[in-house]
């Protein structure tokens, strides 16, 4: 431990505060008058889809196309997930198989 216990507690509180601001702010800002604000309502309708897209890119942000694996493990695993999910429509199967395929690829194939 580099910091003292008090400093550590302070950092934990500050990180908690920062995180909670980002989570609570929309609910505080758009409290009550939200129902008659069509723009915010519109954002609430479209943002979930745009945000999941952002989240997928966020998860893949560290893929490096210059390293020897060229992002192949991620690409192969995602293609498998897409095929499996359109074919079987089983969420857990798609996620489980996709992860196992990825693990095999990064541990044994693209080492």
């Amino acid at each position, binding site marked *: 431990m580099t910091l003292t216990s008090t400093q550590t507690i302070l950092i934990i509180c500050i*990180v908690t505060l920062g995180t909670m601001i980002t989570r609570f702010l929309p609910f505080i800002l758009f409290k009550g008058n939200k129902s008659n604000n069509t723009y915010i309502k519109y954002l609430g309708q479209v943002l979930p889809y*745009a945000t999941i897209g952002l989240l997928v890119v966020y998860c893949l942000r560290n893929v490096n196309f210059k390293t020897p694996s060229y992002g192949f493990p991620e690409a192969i695993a995602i293609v498998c997930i897409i095929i499996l999910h359109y074919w079987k429509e089983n969420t857990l199967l798609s996620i489980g198989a996709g992860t196992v395929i990825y693990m095999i690829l990064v541990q044994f194939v693209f080492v």
Partner: protein
Amino acid sequence: MKEKIMALKVAFPYTIPVLTGFTFLGIAYGILMSSKGYGAGWTVLMSLMVFAGSAQYITINFLTTIFNPINAFLITLMINARHLFYGISMLDKYNDSGKLKPYLIFGLCDETFSIVCSTEAPKDVDKDWFYFFITLLNHAYWVLGSFLGAWLGSKISFNTKGLDFVLTALFVVIFIGQWKNKENRKPAIVGVVCSIICLIIFGQDNFIIPSMAAILIVLTIWRKEFIKKDILTKEGIQ
């Protein structure tokens, strides 16, 4: 009581991918914390209070350098800025959640958001308790996972490389699920394209906020294109 147990039972299967993902990400986090000299108590406290994976990983840096709370605060805000979108997306669903609302908002992490935004509670289940248990279970997995990791310390020896992909897989599957409904495709494309462009321009450490801004701008400028027909007629938006 009966309706709560019912909601818990219905909620559990939705959280299984997160159970797997959080157990191992949590273990990895616990191991990392213990390697920096922070025991199970500190790790559990962090996971209980912050409940945000990426921010907690970054916080390890704040704990192992010179004490700089302002820097810690600003970086946390930047990393977690995406939560603002989660909140706006969930305004409607969480609007009338009453006494459960503060906890639902508190626990709105990436994984919880991805489930609650894409899942409607079955008709015979109380929706607020349903969302509450999804949030609570995910929170519990995260805390238990990080506790396990801190406890195991560096003793762990099997190769977990690539296991964190389970969360990527979860988001991809949710994305496909949303994609199947044609009406959702335009905003989904906006999300992916804006993020990729910003990732290329700003790099992996700084692209989230520019991406959010780009998504907002595109969705605002072309909002007539994106408004679903049923809302148009209901709300009379022109």
